[in-house]
């Protein structure tokens, strides 16, 4: 899965990785707001320059980062083409540049900041602790539940694929198992003295 790579990247060692999550989050928002508020070529060129330097400092594979940022392109391409056809090619290019650069900035942030670091920052910024804890749980069990879904998909492929109602049965079973898993997790947490937020 895609986020596994980002997770590994985020545990690297570089000056950018060492920077505190709060500073990186502020820088990310700053760049995004600048691109959004002043969408001109000087802003875009300055932002690309800064992001390229940051990517170099991070020591992560540059093309890898670029290809992850390209995940925004399918959505963007549709609207860019529409804008182009309606006779505004310059605006279309700007749209692609803006959304790609914004995506790249977000990738760079996620690829140099482990999830626990930025969720702790969110918690310190007085984000609702329920929401932050849910994000952490979600991330922790993403691999586990996704693995289960993957197994179901393989099994179904072995039987010749899902019919509509059979796929419904699989998702229902996945739901029930996730629910039981959550109950088990909660009991295990109580046994270890959990009181609302992770310590």
């Amino acid at each position: 899965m895609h986020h596994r790579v980002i997770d590994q990247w985020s545990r690297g060692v570089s000056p950018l990785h060492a920077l505190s999550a709060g500073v990186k989050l502020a820088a990310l928002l700053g760049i995004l707001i600048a691109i959004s508020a002043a969408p001109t070529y000087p802003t875009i060129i300055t932002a690309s320059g800064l992001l390229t330097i940051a990517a170099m400092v991070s020591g992560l594979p540059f093309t890898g980062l670029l290809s992850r940022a390209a995940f925004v392109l399918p959505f963007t391409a549709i609207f860019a083409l529409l804008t182009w056809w309606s006779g505004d090619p310059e605006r279309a290019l700007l749209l692609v540049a803006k959304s790609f650069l914004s995506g790249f900035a977000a990738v760079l942030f996620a690829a140099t900041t482990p999830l626990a670091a930025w969720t702790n920052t969110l918690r310190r910024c007085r984000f609702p602790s329920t929401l932050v804890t849910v994000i952490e749980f979600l991330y922790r069990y993403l691999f586990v539940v996704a693995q289960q879904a993957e197994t179901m998909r393989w099994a179904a492929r072995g039987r010749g694929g899902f019919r509509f109602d059979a796929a419904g049965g699989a998702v229902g079973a996945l739901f029930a198992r996730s629910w039981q898993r959550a109950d088990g997790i909660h009991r295990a947490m109580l046994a270890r003295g959990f009181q609302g937020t992770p310590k």
Partner: protein
Amino acid sequence: MIHANYSNSRMHIPDGFLTPPVWLTLDVISVPVVAWVARRRPAVVSDLDRRVPLMGVMGAFVFAAQMINFPVGLGASGHLLGGTLLALMLGPGAAAIVLTAVLILQALLFQDGGVLALGANIFNMALAGVLLGYLPSRLFGRNMVTIFLGGMLSVLISGVLALAELQTSGVAITGHPAQVALLLFALTGIVEGAITVVVIRSIERLNHTALRSTSATSLHARLAVIGAAAVLALCGAWLASGAPDSLQLLASNVGLDAEPVWTHSPLANYEVSSLGPEWARRPAAGLLGLAFVYTMFSLGGKKR
């Protein structure tokens, strides 16, 4: 095999599309609403820390469930989006939190939706989508029809809101592209409704403890739903005033423009023409309409 995965006609707006006034407004709306929902304490306090791991695992479930493809004919497939399912299983508040968490992770780790656009995406999918997915079952009791309707409405409202926001930001989507987009949303909505129905039926067959019994609607809950719906109507009216095209397109698509009765009603053109200053008319009309619909629903709906 063509993998025309409907939900990849995504409703996640990336950064770079919305203008600052639009994303800022929606951030300013969504953040306090989510914070309020997240800080609410359930009636039984010990329930809260039981629900936190549950919500987390359910978020992981939403991601994972999207890996299972539902064949919908012609080699195309769809998958569960999950807003309505979560709202019916966990309640709308918890569902909104789970989907917000999903959207935040999608924005940062999957480049699915922007960071500044998070407010917009949360508003469209985690708030409006969940609310509309939940409303039919809440008002009429849970049965196959209301579940289907909820799934369909939740997708439709998310899509239409996204279109309206893009439109307000000056991203030109008019004429045929807008019609195609609405058609896609409608198809995705039908698929989502059908998937939600089969999944809930299969959970029922498993006779799972997760099934919430439809409890009597308390006054408090009703007020919360009305309040949320009112906010939604206000925002919708505000957006509609900025983007009349797409909403009129929607109207013409569902046949509302063929000599509709309501052009003669006091709410014609979403404006209360006889009262109040200019700026208050559309929201007032929206609220009046809501009150009307709500009254009809509570008169017609089964009391439980």
